[in-house]
C-alpha cells in the first residue's frame, strides 16, 4: 500500500515557514499510487488474458512469451518501487513538518522570553 501524506503542520505566529511544495508532493504521491494500482491490477489480469491464447503456437508465440515474461518481471519490480518512491516523498513531507515544529517552538520560546524577561532598571543600590 502506498504511503499517505501527513497533515501539514501550520506555521505558528511569528515562526518562519518551511519551504516545501506540499501540493506538488501530494500530487506525486497520488500519481504514484495510481501507477502502482494500475501495475498491480494489470499483473493480475494479463496472465488470465494470455491463458486465453492457448491456440497460438509457433516462433512468434515463443518471442511473445519471452518478452511478456521479461515485462512482467519489470512491472512487478516497478509496482514495489512505486511504493518506495511514494514513501520517499512522504518522508520528505514529514521532515518538512518536523522542521516546522522546530521553528514553531522557537518562535514560541522567543515570545515567552520576551514576556518573562525582566524590564531593564537604572543604576541603584541594593537593598
Amino acid at each position, binding site marked *: 500500500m502506498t504511503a499517505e501524506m501527513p497533515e501539514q503542520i501550520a506555521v505558528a505566529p511569528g515562526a518562519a515557514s518551511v519551504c516545501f511544495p506540499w501540493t506538488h508532493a501530494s500530487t*506525486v504521491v497520488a500519481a504514484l499510487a495510481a501507477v502502482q494500482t494500475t501495475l498491480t491490477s494489470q499483473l493480475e489480469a494479463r496472465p488470465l488474458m494470455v491463458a486465453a491464447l492457448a491456440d497460438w503456437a509457433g516462433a512468434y508465440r515463443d518471442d511473445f512469451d519471452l518478452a511478456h515474461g521479461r515485462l512482467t518481471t519489470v512491472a512487478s519490480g516497478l509496482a514495489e518501487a512505486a511504493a518506495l518512491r511514494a514513501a520517499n516523498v512522504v518522508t520528505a513531507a514529514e521532515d518538512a513538518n518536523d522542521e516546522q515544529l522546530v521553528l514553531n517552538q522557537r518562535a514560541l520560546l522567543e515570545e515567552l522570553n520576551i514576556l518573562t524577561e525582566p524590564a531593564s532598571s537604572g543604576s541603584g543600590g541594593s537593598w
Partner: protein
Amino acid sequence: MTIHQQPGLRSSSADPFVLSTYVTNATAMTTTLSQNVLALTDAAEALSAAGEAIPGLADFVASVTDLTGDWYHLDEFTGDVANGFLATLEPGYRPDGSPMVLTVDDRTLDGLGGIGFADRDQAVAAAEELAADYQLVLDAVADGDPLVWDPPGSDGAELSLEQMERMAGLLEGYGDDPAFAVTFTEALGVSGIIGMRDMYLTYAREARDVDRPRDHPWTEDGIATWVDEQMAGTAVVLHTAMDTRRDTASRTEPDNADLAGTDRLADDWVDSFETYGGDAQLDYSLLVVEADLPADVLVAVGDNHLGDHFGHADRGPDDDYSGLDSARPPTTEADLNIAAAIAANPDASLGWLTGDGIAAGTDTVDLVLTTPDIAPDMYTAFADIVDTGLTHPTDDTGRGELMEQTIRIVGDPTSGGIHAPAGASPDEVEDAADAMRQAFGHGAAANMDVLHTMITDDWGHAVSGEVPSEDALATHDFLRESMADEAVADRVAAGYVTYAVEQLGPDNLPEPGVDSSPGDLLDDRRELLQQIGTLEGTIVRAENNALVGSVEERIAEQQARGRSVNAGIDIAAFFAGTAPGYGGLVVGGVDTATDVAGVSVGELFFPVDESALDAAEEEATASEGRANVNFATLNALAKGAEAAPIDPTDGVSDDERLAYEAWLIENHYDGPAHDAMIAGASHAEIFENRR
C-alpha cells in the same frame, strides 16, 4: 556481426479473432498505464521545478515510461501477427463465434502482417548493431577503401556478396518494426540513409571489377537491378520511421498514433531530410519515390526542391543554364522523380498545390499555371500533380477550393489560359499543353458541383436576363481552354451526365412548390432544373467555342506562316515542309504574288478554309440541339430508368422516335422539367462566340 534469424520454414497457428481480442484488451490496459505515467511525469516535473528532489523518483519515472513503451510495442507485435492471420481470410469474412485455428507459414505471416520484434529492447539493439555495420561500409566508401571481400588482398573488413545481401535482407525484414526503424534511421542520419544507394552501387561495380563472386554476371543492367533490390530495405525502414511521426496524418500502422514521443522519429531528422541540399540529389529523389513518404513530408520536399522552376531558390544543386534559351532551369531526373512522388499521393498533390511553401503568399497552383517557359517535361509532371489534386478521391473541401482556384486562374481574361512551355518543339509544347488539358478535364468531371456553383451563383438570370458573374465567365473560359481536346470534352460530358442524373434524382430534386427564397420568381425545383440546364449549356458552348476557335486558330496560324514566308524566309524550303511536293512550284508563284499590291501571301496559299469553319459551326449548332434533347433522357435516368432504347440525337427514324417517346412516357416524362432545363440552357447563349 550477429546473424539474426529470419522467418524461414516454420509455421504458426492461432485463432486470429481470439488474438485480436487479446490485442484490443491489452492495448486498452497499456493506454491506461500510459495515462497514469503521463500524469506522474507531469507531477514529478512540477515537484522538481519547485526545488524538491526526491531520491530515485526521476529514474522511476524513466523506468515506468520505458515499460509502457515496451508493453505498447509487444501489443503492436501481437496485433501484427493477428493481422497476418486475418489477411489470409477471404475479404468480408465474418466469424460465427466458433473457434477457428489457422496455420500459416511464418514467411507468409511476416509478409502479410509486417511483423517485427516482440521485445522493443531487442529491436533497438538489432538496429544499433546493423546501423553500425552499415556505417563501416559507408565510411569505407567515403575513404575510398575497398568494399569487396577479395582474398588474399582483403584484410577482413570487406564484405562478401552474401554478407551484403544478408544485411539488406535484415533491413527489409525488420524494417516494419517502428522501434527498429526509428533507431536505425536516426543512427545513420540523413546523409547515411541517402548514401545507401551509392554504397550498393560502389560495391557492385567494385565486385564486377575484381570478379567477385567468380563469374557473377555483373552487367550494367544487372547492377542497376541488384542495387534496386538491395534498396528495398532502406525504403521500408524510412517509410516505417516516417510513419511514427506525430504529424503524419495518414498512417500505414494506425497504432503508431499513440507512440510516446521518444519512440517517434525526431522532428529535426525529418527537417534535415526535407531540406537535403547535398550532391546526391538523384539518389535522394529515388528514395523519396520508393519510401512512400507522408503527404506533408512530400509537400515540404517539393517546396524545397522544385522552386527553381518558378524562379525561386531551392535546395537542389546550382543549375547550369548555359546554352539555354529559356530563363528556366533544365529539368533534372531528380525533379521529375520528386514531382512523380507528389503526383502519386493525392493528399500531397492537394497540399502542395494549395500551399505557399515556395513563394509566401502565392499558392503553388498559381505558380504552376502562370509561370511562363517551364520546361515541357517538367510542365507535364506538374500536370500530373494538378490531375491528382483535382481528382482527390475523398470529398475533400480542399479539392473543391483547388478547382475554384484553378478555374479562376485559367479563366482570367488578362493572364489566363494554358501557359504552354516555350523554347521547345511544337510537338513538345502541344504534348505538355495537352497533359494539362487532360488534368483540367478530369478535374472538371470530378468537381461538377463546383462548376455548377460557379456558373449559377450570383447569376440571377431567371427572368431578368442579368449578365453572368465573373466566376461564370471564368468557368466558361476554363472549359473552353480544356475542351479543345476531344478526349477531355468527352470526359467533361460524362462527368456532367453523372452529376445531372444525381441532381435530378428524387432524393435531391425539391418537390414542386417548395421555395426557400420566397419573393423571387422560381420555386426551388424550377431553379435547380434551370441551373442544371445552364450548366450543360455552358459546357456545350464552351466546347463549341473551343472547336470553332481551334479551326480559326489553325487557319490563322497557317496564314501567319504565309506572312512569315512573305517576310523573306527561304520560301521553297519552308513551303516544302508544309506542302510536300509543291515547294518548287510555289516559289515562282509567291514572287509573282508579291508583285501584286494588296495580296496577302498567307491568304493566297492558306485561304480561309470555309468548309472547315462551316463544318465546325454546323457541329456547334447541332450540339446545342442535341443538348436540349438530352435533358429528357437525363430526367428519365434520374428516375431510375434503364438506358434509353436509342440515341435520340443521332438522326432517328420515325419508328425509333416513337420507341424513344414511349420510353420517356414509361419513365414519367416531365414536360415542365424539360422546359425548365431548356430555358436554363438558353441562358448560356450569352457565351456564343466567346473565343
